[in-house]
């Protein structure tokens, strides 16, 4: 219940530097940078976990890590990359770019935005603190019951997982609510829904998926937590419970989650391709509706993850057909991207290379995906490295290529300096070659029967050569990100001239304001008349626009900074954290007290 007091704070109360200014910030751009920095650190951590896995699998019968540690490594690698890597890296762009592309001064609920970030950070830290207790989650990112019930996982490992993911779910839900309302309500005057930049459209659809999918995994996690804490039998067969229900609930969330991971990357490449081809996006409306169709049908395909549970011919046929149908709108998108580049004046800058790499890699991942939509084929492929190859082609070859392209594309807007092109191209080629060396051989060892999630393999299995290749490939991948880090450090330290407002001849409104933008984004809220608003403005003027000047923003109303979201997020962490290693009533009560204080003081705080 926010109050609507209209108190105009003078701009100098917005502290510009120091730790406190970051803890209390409600500026969507700063929150975006917080998301990006934290997510990139978690991403590197997940990458190191992957490298240890590859080291262990380099040769047969190795014991660099034992089976227990190996289970923790692949569980945390998956959980980290999905919930602490790709999702918050996308959230970085939601935060920084959605308001700018809409022509807005901030998101609809700036303090809720800060709350989302702090809750996300709390969940991410809690999950990783488990390493210090030598009790990292070890039940896979899918946490199948009854592997994860108390009987078979008596330690705290799974507690960290159920509690950590619930906290992350709260962060995602709060953020999704915020961005859903922002896209609908904060479009610049004249910007109709069918004028939205494609990144905003795909992000908008992602928010809908988050809103509808995350409550389901919340229920699943709550039931599992209750089973583990209080001894109920939701997933315990001896009490009549059914472990397969866990799989249904999990994948009912889990498949939309796949689109939550890829749709933002679809949006990013749909921004990059037109700008570097000097052509508007081909088939705009088809792009929008195919995205919406993917999301909608994405709720009806969850059980293709469960063919091996034996659901019977009717269910198998239904989920198989529904899965194949999704290939159609996805194909529409791929042809539209190709159509965008076709006949354009293509500039092979680093962001464009990543966008083109995305298309190629995603096609390969999509094709292997269609292969295991067929139950008989899937029964051969499930739980083998073929599946690992498939989802890395869509999530790494897709999401990470798209996000990295977005990072090169939007870096000058976010930080005011252009990343080095030479190092960028080196990064791209190392990543493309390393990626294919790592993951392409997995198709072959998978079809030859190498199982996933097993910590080693025997010398007679003939898997060694390809596994060595994969490990060397993964080192190249690691090297690619070292180059990226080097590029970031070099660019940040360099004394190069500040980036212009519009270094790429961009089509959308974020390029109409200085790099990096001032706190209020737009001195004057823009009027929009159609798609590609900035190209339209340039066309009207008959050439490029004058470099926008930094202006004095006095009198522009901005929300006050607030530390209350941080307090409320702490309350969430303590309340749910009380479920680690059993239920601790006093911890819950203390957390609830902090949470209530946070929410009430927040609700009655003047918004400024």
């Amino acid at each position, binding site marked *: *219940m*926010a109050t*609507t007091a*209209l108190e105009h704070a003078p701009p100098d109360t917005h502290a510009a530097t120091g730790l406190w200014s970051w803890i209390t910030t409600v500026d969507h751009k700063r929150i975006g940078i917080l998301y990006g920095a934290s997510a990139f650190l978690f991403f590197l951590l997940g990458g190191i976990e992957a490298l240890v896995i590859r080291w262990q699998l380099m040769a047969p019968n190795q014991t660099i890590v034992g089976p227990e540690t190996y289970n923790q490594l692949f569980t945390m690698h998956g959980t980290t990359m999905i919930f602490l890597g790709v999702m918050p890296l996308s959230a970085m762009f939601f935060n920084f770019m959605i308001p700018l592309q809409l022509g807005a*001064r901030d998101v*609809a*609920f700036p303090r809720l935005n800060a709350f989302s970030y702090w809750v996300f950070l709390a969940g991410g830290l809690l999950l990783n603190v488990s390493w210090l207790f030598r009790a990292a989650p070890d039940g896979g990112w899918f946490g199948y019951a009854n592997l994860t019930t108390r009987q078979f996982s008596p330690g705290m490992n799974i507690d960290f997982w159920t509690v950590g993911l619930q906290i992350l779910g709260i962060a995602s*839900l709060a953020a*999704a*609510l*915020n961005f*859903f*309302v922002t896209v*609908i*309500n*904060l*479009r*610049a*005057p004249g*910007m109709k829904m069918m004028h939205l930049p494609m990144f905003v459209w795909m992000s908008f659809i992602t928010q809908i998926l988050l*809103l*509808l*999918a*995350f*409550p*389901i995994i*919340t*229920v*699943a996690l*709550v*039931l599992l937590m*209750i089973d583990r804490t*209080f*001894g*109920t*039998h*939701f997933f315990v067969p*001896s*009490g*009549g*419970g*059914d472990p397969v*229900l866990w799989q249904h*609930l999990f994948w*009912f969330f889990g498949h939309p989650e796949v689109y939550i991971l890829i749709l933002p990357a679809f949006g990013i490449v749909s921004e990059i391709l037109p700008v570097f081809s000097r052509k508007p996006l081909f088939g705009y409306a088809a792009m929008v509706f195919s995205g919406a169709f993917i999301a909608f049908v994405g709720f009806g395909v969850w059980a293709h993850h469960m063919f091996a549970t034996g659901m019977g011919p009717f269910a198998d046929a239904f989920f198989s057909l529904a899965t194949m149908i999704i290939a159609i709108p996805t194909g529409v998108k791929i042809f539209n991207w190709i159509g965008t580049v076709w006949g354009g004046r293509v500039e092979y800058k680093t962001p464009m290379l990543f966008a083109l790499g995305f298309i190629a890699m995603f096609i390969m991942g999509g094709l292997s995906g269609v292969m295991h939509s067929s139950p008989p084929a899937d029964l051969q492929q499930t739980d083998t490295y073929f599946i690992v190859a498939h989802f890395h082609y869509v999530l790494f070859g897709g999401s990470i290529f798209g996000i990295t392209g977005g990072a090169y594309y939007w870096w000058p807007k976010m930080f005011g300096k252009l990343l080095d092109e030479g190092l960028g191209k080196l990064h791209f080629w190392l990543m493309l070659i390393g990626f294919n060396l790592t993951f392409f051989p997995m198709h072959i060892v998978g079809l030859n029967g190498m199982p996933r999630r097993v910590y080693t393999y025997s010398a007679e299995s003939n898997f060694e050569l390809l596994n060595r290749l994969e490990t060397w490939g993964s080192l190249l991948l690691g090297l690619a990100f070292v180059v990226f880090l080097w590029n970031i450090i070099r660019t940040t330290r360099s004394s190069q001239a500040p980036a212009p407002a519009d270094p790429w001849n961009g089509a959308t409104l974020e390029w109409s304001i200085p790099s990096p933008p001032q706190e209020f984004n737009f*001195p*004057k*809220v823009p009027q929009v008349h159609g798609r590609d608003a900035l190209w339209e403005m340039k066309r009207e003027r008959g050439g490029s626009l004058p470099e926008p000047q930094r*202006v*004095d*923003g*006095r*009198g*522009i*109303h901005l929300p006050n900074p607030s530390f209350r979201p941080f307090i409320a997020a702490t309350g969430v962490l303590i309340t749910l954290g009380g479920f680690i290693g059993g239920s601790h009533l006093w911890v819950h009560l203390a957390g609830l007290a902090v949470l209530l204080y946070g929410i*009430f003081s927040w*609700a009655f705080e003047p918004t400024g």
Partner: protein
Amino acid sequence: MADTAHAQVDEHHYTATGIDHRKLAIWTFIASECMFFASLIGTYLVYKGRDVSGPRPHTEWLLNGRMQEQILEIPLVTFGTSLLLFSSFFVVLALSGAQRGNRKALIGWLCATIFCGIFFVGMQVFEFTHFYHRGMGYTTNLFASTFYTLTGFHGTHVTLGLIWLTTVLVVALRGKLPPEKSLNLEIAALYWHFVDVVWIVIFPVVYLIR
């Protein structure tokens, strides 16, 4: 900048649709909550009748060699349900009072709403205690676990709604809910209606359909 500064005051309330952010947000939140309760209700239905032992919701069951009556107390809960439904009506009257600036109607009907809500939660506490004394603990069987979890989560939602409405009542009592701020009550009322609607689904699913 002086002229732009002037225009900003109106921009503070600008929304592309004309709908207040908070109203849109609460509707969106309700959509999300639907999936939350759908999952809980789904779990209840999947496990219905799959208990390995009693108590049973609608039929007799055996405890220590003696037949026990069905566990659910339908008349009591029907009464509680009707009060919850009335409370939805009352909160509309309270909102209407707030919008017309009729302080008496606002406070009176809001008190009636909160009273009905408190009675509903009280009924649930009584019901749970009664079941416990009849031998139905949280982990006794699947019915017990699914029943307590589903209705317990609903009860928690009602309680949160009561805290929210009581906060609005305190604001109203201090004279800080003029008609132009009636949206502060409206969004709480939308949440309250949602909590009611969920019960309209839960009540037949759990209590009426055998």
